[in-house]
């Protein structure tokens, strides 16, 4: 995980997906040059290009982020972003001393993919077998540690780990697109994305 996973845009210049890893423990906004690193506890040290510094809480920085819906999307599309995608192959029962506890997913190997999101679908350009998730077929968007899990009616559970972009940017962007698609389709305002998408 990284500070860019918390900050999907730069809190100083509002550029989206601009925060990148610099040297160890330091991340930098490619747009304005502001640097971020973890200070004491859960606070973040911000260093501006003129050399001045300040300590901010994660909540203070997050409050300054622009809404995802304001994100400028070239050609109406987010990405392509490099990601490692795993598709659940099957599930396995979990037992403890003879008691059936539930089932757990067995994922296939991590496959490098280029992921894109547009108004109608989420797509993973996996070399061997590209996959497309129409937004209206997605049934859950679930963040899990540093990955996003997408469940749908047409594909098994898929897990996305983004190589150099904010997992939260993608989570929020996918949710925002699905929210808009549901409203346009007259399916109501979404009130939850997990454990399954539900509208009011």
């Amino acid at each position, binding site marked *: 995980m990284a500070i860019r996973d918390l900050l999907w845009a730069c809190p100083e210049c509002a550029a989206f997906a601009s925060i990148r890893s610099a040297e160890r423990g330091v991340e930098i906004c490619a747009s304005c040059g502001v640097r971020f690193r973890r200070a004491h506890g859960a606070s973040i040290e911000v260093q501006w290009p003129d050399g001045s510094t300040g300590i901010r809480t994660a*909540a203070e920085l997050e409050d300054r982020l622009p809404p995802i819906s304001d994100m400028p999307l070239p050609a109406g599309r987010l990405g392509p972003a490099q990601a490692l995608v795993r598709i659940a192959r099957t599930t396995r029962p979990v037992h403890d001393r003879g008691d059936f506890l539930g*089932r757990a997913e067995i994922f296939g190997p991590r496959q490098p993919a280029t992921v894109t999101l547009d108004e109608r679908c989420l797509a993973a350009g996996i070399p061997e077998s590209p996959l497309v998730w129409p937004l209206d077929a997605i049934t859950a968007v679930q963040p899990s540690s540093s990955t996003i899990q997408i469940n749908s009616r047409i594909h098994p559970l898929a897990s996305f780990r983004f190589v150099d972009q904010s997992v939260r940017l993608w989570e929020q962007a996918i949710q925002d697109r699905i929210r808009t698609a549901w409203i346009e389709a007259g399916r109501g305002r979404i009130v939850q994305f997990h454990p399954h998408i539900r509208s009011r």
Partner: protein
Amino acid sequence: MNTPADTPWPRETPPPFYRMAQFIARTAWSLAGGIHVHGREHVPETGPFLLIANHQSFLDPIFTQAVIRRPIYAMAKSTQFTDPVVGWMLRRVCSFPVRRYQVDAQAVRIALRHLERGRGVAIYIEGERTWNGRLQEPRPGTARLALRAGVPVIPCAISGTYEIWPRWARRPVRGRATIRFLPPLELPHLSGGANRAAATGAATRLMETLRTAPGPD
């Protein structure tokens, strides 16, 4: 469901691996900042109860289980159980899988079964760790389970663990965690299942209790 008032529940001792994990967690963190516990008297010594906590950090379930003498059964994401070592350890520390991208009826059944056997079950009402340290929206399913189970509900306010290991950080740092067990909440017992309004009302009460709890020491 039977309650402690009408059934003498046996005292449950944690299994050996669980006790060892408790010891390691308490010892390690006493050197790295300490875990301060308040209101331990609100946790029943025997009988079923539902512990409903906020979720700040990866460390929350470890610290919560470390400071309660009796074993606490907790949901853990199902994907963790596929790793043979992690899965074995999770089962030894009384965890059971929940598939979080769908309504997992089996996880609810297991939680209810533990409660029927007089055990304590812990659930993180927000469903996932906070990104920014603030309380998130509650998962209505947790409140529904609390209403359906009809057992004492102990709110548990965890603070300090976000400063130790926030979700966006790679590793933990030293710091003091505070775990505050609050007096049991009186929620109605709706054995036939709770409607949306009742679940929303219970979730609101739980979140308000957690929100107004004192912060870290």
